[in-house]
């Protein structure tokens, strides 16, 4: 019997929507399998079968998986969706997959199960804004410019 245990979320999986997408796929697969097995009056077995995985799930399993692995994965993903910390990063443009993975990897170095929600706001011009449950850290160019103009006005006011 396989005892699949995730050590970290794969960097391809960044946000909660992807988690639920995988959970949905697993549920559909398990449901179909159960229906088929039930009709044969047999339960889930631990035999390795060649299960075709969608691209998003290929990051979890590099080899063959059993239905038990899939069920186990579903359980772990459900737990992650409920308890994992979530961070939102706002960028000035839509990031490509490479940049998305780099940012996600960076956050996973802090917490291996963190979920990264990426938002786009072109008004920030550049840089990023990080929002956690506790606070918002503005590292954008807009913030720098505001500080600059603020200092300018303060200087003018003091003259």
């Amino acid at each position, binding site marked *: 019997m396989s005892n699949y245990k995730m050590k970290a979320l794969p960097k391809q999986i960044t946000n909660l929507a992807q988690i639920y997408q995988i959970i949905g796929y697993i549920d559909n697969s398990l449901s179909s399998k159960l229906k088929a097995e039930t009709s044969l009056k047999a339960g889930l077995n631990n035999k390795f079968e060649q299960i075709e995985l969608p691209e998003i799930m290929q990051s979890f399993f590099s080899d063959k998986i059993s239905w038990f692995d899939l069920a186990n994965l579903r359980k772990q993903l459900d737990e992650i969706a409920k308890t994992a*910390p979530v961070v939102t990063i706002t960028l*000035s443009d839509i990031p490509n997959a490479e*940049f998305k993975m780099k940012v996600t990897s*960076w956050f996973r170095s802090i917490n291996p199960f963190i979920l990264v929600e990426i938002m786009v706001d072109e008004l920030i*011009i550049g*840089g990023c804004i990080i929002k956690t*449950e506790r606070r918002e850290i503005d*590292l954008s160019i807009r913030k720098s410019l505001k500080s600059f*103009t603020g200092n300018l006005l303060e200087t003018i006011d003091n003259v």
Partner: protein
Amino acid sequence: MNTLQISNLNIEQWILSMIIILGIILAFYCILKMDFKKDIKATGAPKPKDIDISANQLKKASEEALYKATEQMTSAYRLNFEKQLKENMVQLNNLFKINSDKITNEFGQSLSNFHNQTRDMITSSQNKIDGYSKNLESEINESVSSRKKEAIEAVDNKINKILMAYLNNSLEGSIDLSDQQDYILEKLEKNKITISRDINNV
């Protein structure tokens, strides 16, 4: 009370005067009668002429005595009246002096109270005016400060918007996000401790 005393003394004086007058008249009458009887005894029956003379003398003497008594009574009355008047004047003067002092003191006290009340009112009014003035000054300063701050913020926002609009228009599409990768990752790395604490709830 003084008037009553004077009136009482007048009545007594008058009664005394009347008694004196009647006494004098009675005395003259007795003397003349005795002389007349002596003359009759000595000379026999008086002659009508002598009787007329005696009657005239008696009348004259009576008038003189009456006049003198009247004079004495008037003089005594005047002296007494003057004395009483003097005493009453002294009493009246003392009374007036006492009352005058009392009135003066009361007036002085009232004046002093009024002065104190007026001074308190002026002081109170001055304090209120000072307080109002300070509040007004404070409010004006706050208002000016607030307006100044609002004006600066308004200018700040305008400049920000202008700059942002200009930069967005100028840089639209020209800054590729991939060019920012290093910058963003560097920024994240600089704030790693803070972000890590927030994420892991340390």
